[in-house]
């Protein structure tokens, strides 16, 4: 087992336990006087109107799609970039093609107005 990854695991556990400790400590120290008004949903003092879980517009999802596909693209780009020094010009052409095809997608999204935040 790689010691470095063991460290990552331990750091993750520690990072989760730090807030647990802090919240536990605060539980001992802080006052606790709950009240009906105090525990109501905070909307600048007004009563909550309508459903809390509002429905969102589809624009959010369009951005998420474009993001996911470009994120996947970076997964291919990073190994390519690391290996690039030993690959030469042909690899650059291959990556041009890959990026070109994806750029068509970005241009399409742009032209169709999927990049407009309305």
């Amino acid at each position: 087992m790689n010691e470095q990854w063991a460290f990552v695991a331990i750091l993750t556990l520690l990072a989760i336990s730090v807030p647990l400790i802090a919240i536990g400590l605060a539980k001992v120290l802080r006052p606790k006087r709950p009240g009906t008004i105090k525990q109501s949903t905070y909307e600048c003092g007004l009563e909550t109107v309508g459903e809390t879980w509002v429905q969102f517009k589809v624009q959010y999802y369009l951005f998420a799609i474009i993001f996911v596909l470009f994120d996947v693209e970076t997964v291919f780009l990073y190994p390519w970039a690391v290996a690039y020094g030993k690959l030469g010009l042909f690899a650059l052409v291959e990556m041009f093609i890959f990026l070109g095809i994806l750029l068509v997608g970005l241009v399409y999204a742009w032209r169709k107005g999927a990049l407009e935040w309305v």
Partner: protein
Amino acid sequence: MEQLAFGVLALLTLGAGFGVITSRTVFVSALWLVLSFVGVAGIYVLLGAHFLAVTQVLVYVGAISVLVLFAIMLTRDLMAEEHPQNKQWVLATIVAGSVFGTLATIGYTTDWALTWPRGAAGVASTSTETAASSGLGSSAVEAIGRSLMSEHLLAFEVVSVVLLVALIGAIVIARD
């Protein structure tokens, strides 16, 4: 130590997977799914596939889960608690159970060392420790890059076309 780590990760992955299929709220299901993805990333680390582990976190935890969560937010029905299962659960239990039984039996009983003719198989199956020491870690990223640019070039370029089609298709479908 490896076994300990495997035990924890397997418990995490399968437990979270169980959470996905049993929780009553879709949003909570999605959270369990994310935890399961993290567990799988840990399994990849154990297997010496470090780049894959990072990719798993980047794509599954950081991206696909965002898609799922956005989709949940966009479809209001999903907010409510619901009766999660349909009437097929008896049948589904039988199917899933028998699939698991078959796969597990095959996995356990097959003498895997015989299935790969090359001599190297025995070396790797005795120890995963070689993964860290033999350069699988340090230069694997570069090797993946070279592999994508030579042997798997076709797959690589086809992936870009698939991504393009998915992008255009998803935009067209989701917009109207």
